[in-house]
């Protein structure tokens, strides 16, 4: 977890020192939520991809966090029962339960760290894309005249 914080801090420092060169209006929205700035800039495909990735990752992170807290509570409860057991059968039962919940908490902690890192990565990618990803897209709508008619085309940029 400490490594994740260090990486995020480094990314934030880099981002905050070079943000002046970017289009600040859309970058603000991209900082608020990954993909928002891209959508505002007309890069719908990339924006939708970032928004979807962030929502999925944050949902998974929230669920892993809730389950981790629950596993820790169950572990603490089993540990208290184990330490206060007055019968060897209860002691064995709560010792096994305690070990099982410990393993659950360890696994969920790993998942939570991975998902947190992914969410931060998506967010950083969104911000970096707004600042350095280039925005040279054409107009979102174009009108072409062909044989006896018009073609209105919508441009999606990824």
């Amino acid at each position: 977890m400490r490594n994740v914080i260090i990486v995020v801090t480094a990314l934030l420092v880099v981002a905050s020192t070079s943000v002046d060169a970017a289009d600040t209006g859309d970058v603000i929205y991209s900082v608020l939520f990954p993909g928002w700035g891209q959508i505002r800039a007309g890069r719908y495909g990339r924006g939708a991809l970032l928004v979807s990735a962030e929502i999925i990752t944050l949902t998974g992170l929230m669920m892993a966090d809730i389950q981790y807290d629950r596993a820790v509570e169950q572990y603490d409860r089993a540990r208290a029962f184990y330490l206060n057991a007055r019968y060897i059968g209860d002691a064995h039962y709560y010792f096994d339960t305690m070990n099982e919940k410990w393993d659950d908490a360890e696994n969920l902690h790993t998942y939570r760290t991975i998902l947190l890192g992914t969410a931060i990565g998506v967010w950083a990618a969104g911000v970096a894309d707004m600042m350095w990803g280039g925005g040279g897209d054409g107009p979102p709508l174009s009108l072409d005249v062909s044989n006896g008619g018009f073609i209105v085309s919508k441009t999606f940029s990824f």
Partner: protein
Amino acid sequence: MIRAMICVVAIALVCFVSCGKDHEGLPTGFDYDPPPTPSDFQATAGVEQAHLSWSYPAESLPTLLEFRVYYYYSIYDMVELVGTTTETEFTDTQLIGNVEYCYRVSAVDTSDFEGWRTAVQCVTVLSGFR
């Protein structure tokens, strides 16, 4: 403006990481040393009573507080305390004839910690009506 927002996001992340629950720590291992289980447990039927007997290692008697005698209900897989004794025998009285009673016994040491219970012994009590 953007720098402030980035700082807010960073603070939120650090709070999320640091405000989570932590393990209290796993005990190093199973460290209970229970008293030995009574052996040779037997139940014999009497008239409206059941007589229970068992044996116990002599070297463990100094740390023995008492024996606990339980009814065992197989359909619930539960026990109910009948009584306690410091002897290696016990008589359960005022029972109903022609009814099966199941028993388990355990030893409790002077630290009030109870060891494993014996296997179940069942007995059908004799009726007082002939």
